[in-house]
């Protein structure tokens, strides 16, 4: 598989290089950006000092196109990071498009929530704070789209599994799992070996009509997040816990879902839902030796967008529900979350105010993200923002020490 990957990359790069040399319509776009964040913890610690260079090299001719998207992150306190977010080749036929290579694939109608949008794994090293094109990782895939009028059948084959990328040990975004005693981690089962049998397949039908936009999807994929299998060592005499071994392992999932979007007067109504079969959850049931039980799981969203007093507003309600639940399961049976967005433009659309919030109903916690962006000149923007975490528990409350203000100075070309 490595040889195949190397071969494909060599072919793509050779094609790009040769074509670029002879091309007259080569498109070079991208941006340079400084992102500086300051923690509001009283110590004036920088949460991030990052300089980014992102380049999009694109070219098309007749029925063939390609894109190469190298990026570079330079940090004050970390090693230089250079990578390729996307490198792919497009081939266009009359009613079929084929894309081969490293690519980001985005599905669904939800904003800021991942329900059917599960093809590209997430880079969560900075939690959910980066721009979404930086959260979604490119994956090596073959994507085929077949078009009939405004209907699209899409098939994605991912030969090699890529998991979620998590923060490192020193990161303020790392989540420390809670155990009664210090565990020993065994990562021997975490890696999904590269083989045809372990590849992933995703399919989607989408239609775009005057009445409604619709997507129906299905997948046979790996859970991007590993399940923690926990093996307990119990003293046979005292029956006390003497040791814990934790083995992270990715589970196979069968997923079916869909999404819709339609308008009614000034309102846009959106919905998205997915049924996950075989998702692993931690349980305290003493009869289960590895502390994991597989349950089916439902994740869905309803939302609306509208404009009031020239303020573009969006509301979303999201629910996660574990089916066939029992009280041994560590997670809550139902988790409810909401999002709220308000955005407005002023000064001939040179000044942009935005307020976005996630709200975790179960833990009474939230992430509040206000921003002010000013377009200094065409392509040159300055942003001042804040990330405020409220509450003490849950996915937002646990970061309540990480409140920060930040600036982003960006030049696009």
């Amino acid at each position: 598989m490595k040889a195949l990957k190397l071969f494909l990359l060599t072919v793509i790069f050779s094609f790009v290089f040769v074509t670029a040399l002879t091309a007259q319509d080569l498109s070079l776009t991208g941006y340079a950006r400084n992102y500086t964040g300051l923690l509001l913890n009283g110590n004036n610690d920088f949460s991030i000092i990052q300089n980014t260079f992102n380049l999009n090299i694109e070219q098309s001719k007749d029925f063939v196109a390609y894109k190469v998207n190298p990026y570079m992150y330079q940090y004050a306190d970390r090693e230089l990071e250079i990578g390729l977010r996307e490198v792919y080749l497009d081939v266009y036929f009359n009613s079929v498009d084929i894309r081969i290579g490293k690519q980001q694939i985005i599905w669904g109608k939800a904003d800021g929530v991942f329900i059917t949008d599960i093809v590209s794994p997430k880079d969560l090293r900075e939690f959910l704070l980066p721009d979404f094109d930086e959260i979604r990782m490119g994956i090596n895939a073959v994507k085929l789209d077949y078009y009939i009028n405004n209907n699209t059948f899409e098939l994605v084959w991912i030969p090699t599994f890529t998991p979620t990328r998590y923060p490192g040990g020193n990161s303020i975004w790392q989540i420390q799992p809670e155990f009664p005693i210090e565990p020993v981690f065994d990562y021997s089962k975490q890696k999904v070996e590269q083989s045809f049998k372990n590849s992933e397949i995703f399919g989607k039908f989408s239609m775009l009509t005057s009445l409604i936009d619709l997507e129906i999807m299905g997948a046979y994929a790996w859970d991007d997040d590993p399940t923690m299998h926990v093996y307990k060592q119990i003293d046979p005499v005292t029956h006390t816990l003497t040791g814990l071994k934790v083995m992270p392992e990715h589970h196979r999932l069968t997923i079916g879902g869909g999404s819709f979007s339609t308008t009614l007067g000034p309102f846009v109504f959106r919905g998205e839902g997915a049924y996950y079969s075989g998702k692993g959850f931690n349980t305290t049931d003493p009869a289960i030796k590895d502390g994991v039980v597989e349950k089916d799981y439902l994740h869905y969203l309803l939302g609306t967008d509208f404009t009031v007093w020239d303020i573009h507003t969006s509301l979303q309600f999201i629910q996660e529900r574990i089916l066939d639940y029992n009280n041994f399961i560590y997670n809550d049976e139902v988790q409810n979350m909401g999002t709220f967005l308000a955005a407005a433009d002023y000064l001939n659309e040179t000044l942009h105010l935005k307020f976005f919030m996630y709200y975790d109903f179960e833990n009474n916690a939230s992430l509040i993200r206000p921003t002010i962006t000013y377009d200094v000149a065409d392509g040159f923007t300055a942003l001042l923002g804040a990330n405020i975490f409220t509450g003490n528990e849950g996915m937002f409350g646990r970061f309540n020490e990480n409140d920060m203000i930040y600036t982003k100075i960006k030049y696009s070309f």
Partner: protein
Amino acid sequence: MKKAVLLIAILMLTGITVHAQEKLTGLEIMKKVYNRPTGNDMEANLTMILISSSGNERVREIKQYIKDSGDVEKKIMFFIKPADVRNTSFMNWSYDDPKKDDDQWIYLPALKKIKRISSDSKGDYFMGSDFTYDDLGDRKPEEDTHKILREEKLNGEDCYVIESIPKDEDYMYSKTVTWIIKDKWIGLKKEFYDEDGEYLKILNIKDYKKIKDYWIITQTEMDNVQKNHKTVMKLSNIKIDTGIPDSKFTERMMKRGLK
């Protein structure tokens, strides 16, 4: 940005043709402007130059395609400049049925996602310019009460001067006054008055030409006198009746862009 879309072309194509000897009402004149034939399809490059009170200029460039299939007119726009909105696309389906709202979608390349948006805010400004969607031609003549004020020459052209007062008292303009060339049915100049009756802005047609028997306005200038902000709008590389296929106005093309 979601508004960054449509109707520019309609404005550019808007004209009128009436027989000078007929005695027309104000509404009939405005209907002729609105319904003037503009071909079955058109592609063009649109450039907008936004000029602030201090003289700073910002430039927006768009490639647009329009096709009229009888009961529905479809448009798709691809944003080229500024760089931070490049590859954004916008699609609008507009229906002859006055009861049916337009359908609109926007493709945001950073999100790699097509979003359906509401077409309800036609009084919103287009891409930070001084044109609202209604200014760009989406306002139907029946929405206003029209009166012929006088006939006079403007720039050497015989014109009707028409006063239009919105039937909806809450509309953003209290009235507009338009100078319409009699034999070409082009609105040569238009004055806009705000909700308080104060003079707000003026539209001047700077250039127009005949392409394939259609009068096409190729350059306009909207001057907001209250904000001292101006927008120059130019159409270039205009191609009419080339047979743009229906497949141009699809999800596939929104994502693919100008490739």
